[in-house]
């Protein structure tokens, strides 16, 4: 699905942000990128989306360049990035509108997505009337409206309180079970990464490179009970240890 080979990125003449990244992501995987700040995890996501270009190396998504593959991708940003002058429903429909989907189909899709994320009751509200967690849900619904095969997420729940974040994580997995997209997820939180992922990629800083890859073989469906299992605890310990190794190196 995603294949990165010998990928490097540097801005101008400064030292590289990412050096010689080789990474393959299969269809259906949920891969989290984790690492200390400055390890280039957000840059890696921007490279996959084609929002920035690599200095060398290649990126292929289903055999296409990132820019050509954009129709099959959606991006969820750190902040909700909603348009304040549009209602919730019209925000959810934005991607469809930009991709010239007809009004009737759009209306139907928006309706079903609002139901899916539990926002039907605020369809006509404006973003400023919503809490941070609800705004993020609108953002997720908007990303899913264009039925992406690949979902790129850049710390989407980083600004939320832990309870809200946990609940949204559970919802995200429920949506994934229904819609079967592949995900690349950037986060700072070890427990969030373990809970969501099928694989965790630990990045080391200066220059950004892959230090460890840890498979997360917790069974699906995962719920709040999953977080209390000893298996979950030991995986969190493993990932934290890997992350500490990267920090002190």
């Amino acid at each position, binding site marked *: 699905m995603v294949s990165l080979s010998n990928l490097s990125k540097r801005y101008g003449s400064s030292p590289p942000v990412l050096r010689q990244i080789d990474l393959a992501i299969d269809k259906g995987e949920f891969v989290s990128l984790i690492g200390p700040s400055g390890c280039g995890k957000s840059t890696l996501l921007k490279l996959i989306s084609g929002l920035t270009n690599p200095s060398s190396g290649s990126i292929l998504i289903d055999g296409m360049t990132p820019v050509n593959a954009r129709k099959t991708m959606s991006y969820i*940003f750190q902040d909700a990035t909603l*348009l*304040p*002058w549009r209602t919730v429903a019209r925000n959810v429909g*934005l991607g469809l509108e930009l991709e010239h989907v007809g009004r009737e189909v759009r209306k139907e899709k928006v309706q079903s997505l609002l139901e899916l994320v539990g926002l039907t009751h605020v369809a006509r509200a404006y973003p400023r009337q919503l809490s941070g967690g609800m705004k993020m849900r609108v953002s997720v619904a908007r990303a899913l409206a264009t039925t992406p095969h690949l979902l790129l997420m850049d710390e989407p729940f980083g600004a939320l309180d832990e309870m809200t974040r946990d609940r949204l994580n559970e919802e995200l997995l429920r949506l994934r079970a229904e819609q079967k997209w592949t995900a690349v997820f950037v986060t700072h939180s070890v427990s969030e990464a373990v809970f969501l992922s099928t694989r965790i990629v630990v990045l080391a800083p200066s220059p950004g490179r892959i230090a460890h890859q840890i498979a997360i073989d917790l069974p699906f469906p995962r719920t709040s009970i999953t977080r209390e299992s000893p298996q979950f605890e030991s995986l969190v310990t493993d990932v934290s240890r890997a992350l500490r190794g990267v920090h002190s190196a």
Partner: protein
Amino acid sequence: MKKYSVTVLNALAVFAALLLLWYGLDRLLRLPPYMLPTPLAVGRAVVARFPSLLASLAITTEEAAGGLAASIVVGLLIALLFAQSRWIRRMLYPYTILLQTVPIVAVAPLILMWVGPGILSVTLVAFIICLAPIIANTTQGLISVEPNLIHLFLMHNASRLQILTRLRLPHAVPSLFVGIRIAAGISVIGAITGELFAGSSRVGEGGLGYSILYASAQLQTDYLFALVLAATVLGFAFFFLVMFLEWYFLHNWHESARTMIDE
């Protein structure tokens, strides 16, 4: 809404106090009416010469509104041009500042010389004075869109036109209104300045500026006061009209509109 009415009451109380002060000063200093007429004399002048006062007000309103409207259309178009590239901005922006710094009283006689006296030339003076704030604020609004919102649009393969019409333009509306609010106030100043040089645009009558010149030459100080009052009322009316439109278009989503009503 309650706070709003308190504000209005406060303003009215200050107005009443000022009137009293004026009246007291008049009685105390026993100034001749051509130096400082009493509020009552001004009131009488308003009533006695109401038709010509209204005619002057109408002319000035027409010029100021025309200049303002033209500046919104032209200013928006120029801002759209400026938003296209940093190079265009670097090349042309200094001239917007020039537009703002050149004293309008110095330019007005030139325009009247070139265009000839009349409503058109006065409207042009109002237009010039209104243009800079519209351009500056709207350009700022068009280019200050958050990068991630642009990225979002790009991820959905949005065209340049889609980014302009669905992102940059709506994002610039609050800034456009800031510009219009500033311009609305000074459009009246522009029109009156123009009229000071334009003379009578129709036989026997002119705008507020012309009538002010005439009244002062004739030492009709009471009528002069009435004219100044009319000019002030016109400025206020413009300002509040723009405030209302701003509220009407933005109260659903914009912070500035919300705080404006609440506080």
